[in-house]
């Protein structure tokens, strides 16, 4: 009763709407569900036609993944994606704040210059990165991957975070400064909490970019810093594809992103839609 006054009106969905939602959900989730059910099947069952939908599930594919080198690749992926996301945010968020508050003539030119690095396809940078990394000994290292992903994520952070900072009224900062707070305190304690949804959304996008990257990981790693997406492809052997492991690996690769996204979904929605309606 009171909900009607304070929050959005709750309406019970009509059966037709429920069916539509169910069908859409099944369609959207079917590739994921198919992959997931494959991961619990033996190779024989996976290749059976027509595919059996009722079967005795096995954890054999997951077990063999962790007995092999996949676990190390998974850790490599986690490390490179997490560190590069953190580094891009540490460098990019203050830069975005500075740019949003800067009223000088070079602002647009500088912003554009930062974005230029994202305008060429990754393939254009691959060979220079490969040769340079070989020269300085960063080939097949997690550090090398962190640096590449950071360099690609930095423009994204700067460009994504600027509009969030612009929505924070300058008067708030001025009031804090008048009260004696330093610029650092204003930034860390007043401005940053207000753009937290933006940071969460940006962090997810950065993490996704690094986590899902295949191309740079393929070229810049060998066996020591191999990441999970490359490790999944590694089950496509000359003598046959290990379908069960590919499916189990694919499902596991999805898990951290899913968990991370669920954990910050509230921020993600508000972060991604912020600024969509001005009023």
């Amino acid at each position: 009763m009171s909900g009607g006054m304070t929050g959005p009106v709750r309406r019970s969905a009509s059966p037709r709407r429920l069916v539509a939602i169910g069908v859409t959900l099944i369609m959207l989730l079917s590739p994921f569900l198919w992959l997931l059910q494959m991961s619990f099947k033996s190779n024989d069952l996976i290749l059976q036609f027509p595919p059996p939908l009722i079967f005795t599930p096995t954890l054999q594919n997951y077990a063999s993944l962790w007995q092999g080198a996949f676990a190390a690749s998974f850790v490599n992926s986690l490390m490179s994606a997490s560190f590069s996301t953190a580094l891009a945010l540490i460098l990019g968020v203050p830069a975005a704040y500075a740019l949003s508050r800067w009223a000088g003539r070079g602002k647009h030119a500088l912003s554009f210059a930062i974005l230029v690095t994202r305008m060429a396809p990754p393939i254009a940078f691959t060979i220079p990165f490969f040769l340079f990394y070989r020269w300085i000994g960063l080939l097949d290292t997690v550090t090398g991957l962190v640096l590449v992903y950071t360099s690609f994520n930095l423009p994204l952070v700067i460009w994504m975070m600027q509009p969030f900072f612009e929505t924070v009224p300058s008067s708030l900062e001025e009031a804090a400064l008048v009260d004696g707070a330093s610029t650092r305190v204003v930034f860390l304690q007043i401005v940053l909490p207000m753009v937290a949804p933006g940071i969460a959304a940006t962090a997810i996008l950065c993490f996704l970019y690094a986590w899902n990257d295949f191309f740079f990981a393929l070229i810049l790693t060998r066996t020591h810093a191999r990441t999970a997406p490359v490790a999944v492809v590694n089950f496509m052997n000359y003598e046959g594809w290990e379908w069960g492991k590919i499916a189990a690996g694919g499902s596991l690769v999805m898990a951290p992103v899913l968990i991370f996204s669920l954990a910050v979904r509230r921020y993600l929605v508000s972060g991604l839609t912020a600024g969509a309606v001005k009023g």
Partner: protein
Amino acid sequence: MTKKNSSHKSVGFSRRALLQTGAAALGAAAFPLPAIAQTKPFAGVTLRGASFQHRFFTLLQNYIPEFEAQTGMKVDLQLSAFPVYNQQANLELSSGGSAFDFVNVTFILAARWVAAGLLANLDEFTGDPNLTPAGWNPKDFVEGAQVPYRDAKGATYGYSWEGGAMVMGLSRMDLMEKKGLKIPKTFAELQQVCAEINGTDNVNGIVSFQLHHWCLPPYIQGFGGNIFRKPPADIMPTLNSPEAIQAVDYYANLLKNYAPKGVLTYTEDQARQSHMTGRSNIFIHSSAWITPILLSNDSKVKDTSRVVRMPAGPVHDYPAANSQGLGIPKNAKNKKAAWEFIKWALSPEISMRLVKEHGHSSVCRRSVIESEEYRKLNTVNGQDLGALYLEVLGLPAKGENYMAYRTVKEFPIVGDVLNKAFEQVATGQLAAQAAMNAAQEQAVANLRRAGTAL
């Protein structure tokens, strides 16, 4: 006197011996490292090698500790998936890298790597008796498997560790016998057997998989055509020759009429599975994919299977063959150590151990394949699989090297075009002639765009 002399002699000998022993002991104490280095000349060397994952290397890894103990070197063997390895090794070699001391020379990349001078000439090692004992015998490798690793002058840049020979597996000989059908020996007989068996007892006449540019060329060559005019010297594509069109039509009809639905997108695994469970009667592919119907524990058709030569065409009898080799990058840091490893890994002793201890039969040493032990292990239901393998693997070296089309660097471009054209025909989108005319134009355009002078 004699006694005295003898006594003197004995005293003198003892003193001299004592001095010699003392000096030797002092020397050994002062210079211990050179003495060790003499017995293990590669002590302290870390040898880095790369290849795609394959059972051969998985098995070899069991023996590597023995090699490390013998030589003192440490072997860091990096194994990746086939596409991943090819991508990484291609980039490493093309950019003059020295990260690897030995590499797998992939069949489809062999010609490019050899022609571009990316590999070390192994004749320099085999020609030096200090580096290669006579017993190693480079000529023991099956000639047909060695062809891809030679340059125009005949210098060798790789030695093969695995051979693939295209054979035909028949999983339901029981059905064929019931119908009074014999093993097909010609393309016409193949079509007839497929037609007769298809649908009987829910069995498909034939099965294949999506790598059409591997499965189709033996038919094109069988009808008298080829992929290029005269590879490797003349690489003008000949995809719209009457023979190629006839072959595409023939093979497309086989798959359209007698193969399981969806066969055009089948992987090798799916095709093998269909074959091993008896759902498809005929499968024509490399021996490693076919012989499991007789050898694998998963096979449900062990008692009703036969493995034989693939049928011959009206003009040629050219079953496909390939091999994979080990080579040394031109800029490798430890070439001698790498050669030591290759020599050991491909020695007759290790090859024989792989056969005897693990049943790994796709080795390339003739002396091993022709040995009594090999024959015993690879004769199943009275079928000598080793002899069949050796026969097919050796064919490209006898007379025309008909597999040359596959080792030229232009092949991947033309192969892709051929794949697409075949799919258009097999799915009924285009007639064979129209598809192959378009493919020819496309192949020529793609090659020119890639900078090939035709």
